[in-house]
């Protein structure tokens, strides 16, 4: 009889700790993941994302973590490959203490892993994946702090019309999801603005020689060459061969090109005067970001544009986890719900962050830069008008 009471009592005690559903005691530990291409052609921007998120985690831990528990930040390398991205997603989902993930930054990897994270209700905040369809599939766990391609495409079209005063545009895009989509959105925007002299051609990323297709561009005599490729090394070859062939057009590159070492320095002067767009603003011009910039640069070196959104995303994620952990236990569902409640979060990006129903950023901006000497100079910002 006594034994029976003891057993019943132990079961009751255990149940008290476990709680209903997936929720667990905060004291067991808090893990946050970071999925991205930490090796390969995009390693540099992705490491910047990871390190920036690490700065945020370190700051939280220095303040005592969440409910006195130190946060552990775990890296998952997908090498830009959707199959490896799915392995990372399965690993993160299987980790019971994982309450949120930063990434994946590549649209095609984000697409491949959407269902895995979604089924597990594990919140992901991407800092760069911009393919519109990612937030159109009914998933509640997916958020982004960067604008979508349809916003970027329209903003880029506006920029070309208003700032560059173009009449003829050549669009070259790499054959991957993000680039194809960006090309489609931009061309749609240009046509809406009445610019219809457009040549569209494709390239294969990593092929190293684009001179044949660029020769075709030369014969088209465009005012602007919009070069849509994922990585900075490919953009560097693009701008170098454009100059070499004597193409008399403004070179306009995409966000991947905002990289001093792999774009400006690698092209050895050919990039001078080129334009690039980026989803992040010039972080040095925002007073609220000064602390983060100082901390990052003292530890990891010079920033490009990929770090700040990751710092912001990690802070937003940890805020949501912190709120979920207030009552001593925490579940992934709570974290997702709290993220939807984030309103006008004032961080370091220079604009307040609010997510809409789909997880997209309200009020999307695109920033434009010009290569001057060995640096990028912010020219303007477009917000769809």
């Amino acid at each position, binding site marked *: 009889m006594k034994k029976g009471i003891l057993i019943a009592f132990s079961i009751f005690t255990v149940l008290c700790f476990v709680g209903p559903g997936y929720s667990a005691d905060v004291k067991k530990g808090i893990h946050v993941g970071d999925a991205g291409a930490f090796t390969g052609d995009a*390693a540099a921007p992705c490491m910047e994302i990871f390190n920036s998120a690490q700065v945020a985690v370190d700051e939280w831990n220095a303040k005592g973590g969440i409910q006195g528990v130190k946060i552990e930040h775990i890296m998952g390398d997908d090498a830009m490959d959707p199959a490896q991205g799915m392995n990372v997603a399965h690993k993160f989902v299987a980790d019971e203490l994982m309450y949120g993930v930063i990434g994946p930054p590549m649209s095609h990897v984000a697409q491949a892993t959407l269902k895995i994270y979604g089924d597990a209700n594990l919140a992901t905040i991407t800092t760069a994946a911009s393919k519109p369809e990612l937030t159109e599939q009914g998933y509640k766990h997916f958020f982004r702090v960067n604008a979508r391609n349809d916003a970027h495409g329209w903003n880029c079209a506006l920029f070309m019309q208003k700032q560059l005063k173009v009449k003829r545009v050549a669009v070259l895009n790499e054959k991957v999801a993000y680039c194809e989509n960006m090309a489609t959105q931009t061309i749609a925007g240009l046509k809406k603005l009445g610019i219809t002299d457009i040549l569209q051609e494709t390239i294969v990323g990593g092929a*190293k020689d684009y001179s*044949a297709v660029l020769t075709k561009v030369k*014969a088209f005599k465009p005012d602007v060459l919009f070069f849509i490729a994922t990585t900075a090394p490919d953009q560097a070859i693009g701008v170098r061969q454009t100059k070499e062939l004597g193409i008399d057009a403004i070179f306009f590159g995409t966000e991947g090109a905002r990289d001093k070492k792999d774009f400006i320095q*690698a092209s050895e002067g050919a990039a001078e005067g080129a334009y690039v767009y980026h989803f992040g603003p010039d972080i040095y011009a925002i007073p609220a970001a000064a602390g983060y910039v100082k901390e990052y640069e003292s530890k990891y070196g010079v920033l490009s544009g990929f770090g700040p959104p990751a710092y912001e995303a990690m802070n937003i994620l940890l805020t949501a986890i912190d709120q979920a952990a207030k009552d001593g236990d925490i579940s992934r569902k709570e974290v997702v719900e709290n993220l939807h409640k984030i309103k006008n979060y004032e961080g370091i990006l220079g604009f307040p962050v609010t997510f809409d129903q789909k997880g997209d950023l309200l009020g999307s901006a695109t920033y434009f830069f010009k290569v001057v000497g060995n640096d990028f100079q912010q020219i303007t910002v477009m917000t769809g008008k």
Partner: protein
Amino acid sequence: MDIYLQQLPQQLVNGLTLGGVYALIAIGYTMVYGILGMLNFAHGEIYMIGGFTGWWVLYLLTKSNEVIMHAALVISLMIIAAMAVSALVGMLAERVAYRPLRNAPRINLLLSALGVSIFLQNLVLNYQGAKVRSFHISSLIPESLRVIQIGPAVFSFMRALVIVITFLLMGLLALMIKKTKVGKAMRATAQDIEAAAFMGVDVDRIVVLVFLIGSALGGAAGTLVGLLFTQVDYYVGFQAGLKGFTAAVLGGIGNIYGAMLGGILLGLAESLAVTFLPSAYKDVVAFVILITVLIVRPWGLMGEKIPEKV
């Protein structure tokens, strides 16, 4: 129509450079096939290693964005070092992975070559990382020579250099095979390896020599492409190997002149295809040509129709 015609001279230049590089790679495939009847799948990796060697030589000879000796000397050193290292790797692969299997079924050799390819690629990935290396070539060419305008076509200095060096190397090889005693021994071994051995040809030495020459040319191609397109990474060997192999088959595998012709034709076909069709069809056109040639002449453009030995 005019818009196509004005592109033609430039596309010929583009195609000729690309084709020259394909030809150099194809020679390595075709020489080994001609003698051993095997496809050396690791040849693309040998090319990649040549590219990395050239990058390192340039990197070590550059101090604060200026090369520390005469540019011509630097370029020569890059090419020579790349040829030497690639030749060494090719010979090592032959000694370790192919020679023990020489009398085994052909499929074993093929698998062994695939293994060598994967091994070399991952070795470089491990020790050099996955990041793209950029060749800083601006200090190698004086500003005034960087771009040369000839009629409607633009030659960059590097393009001209690559074409000259490629054809020089191919010419030297052709001369060696035709005129020297070693060349004769190579031709004899290719014709009949057993009979050549009976006649006193040291067949093992010839095989090593074939790997040495083929790999050295592959290495030279790696560095030349590095100078031309200014980048190398651990994965470039795959694409280049595929194109080189295609060129070798197109020209008639086993025939060195065929490899040269096949490479140049393939390069030209790719460039010209882009002129008339959307660029996505570039590879489609190249391979349609290959398939058509193989249907009409299964032994390739310059290959010989060999009767089945009974």
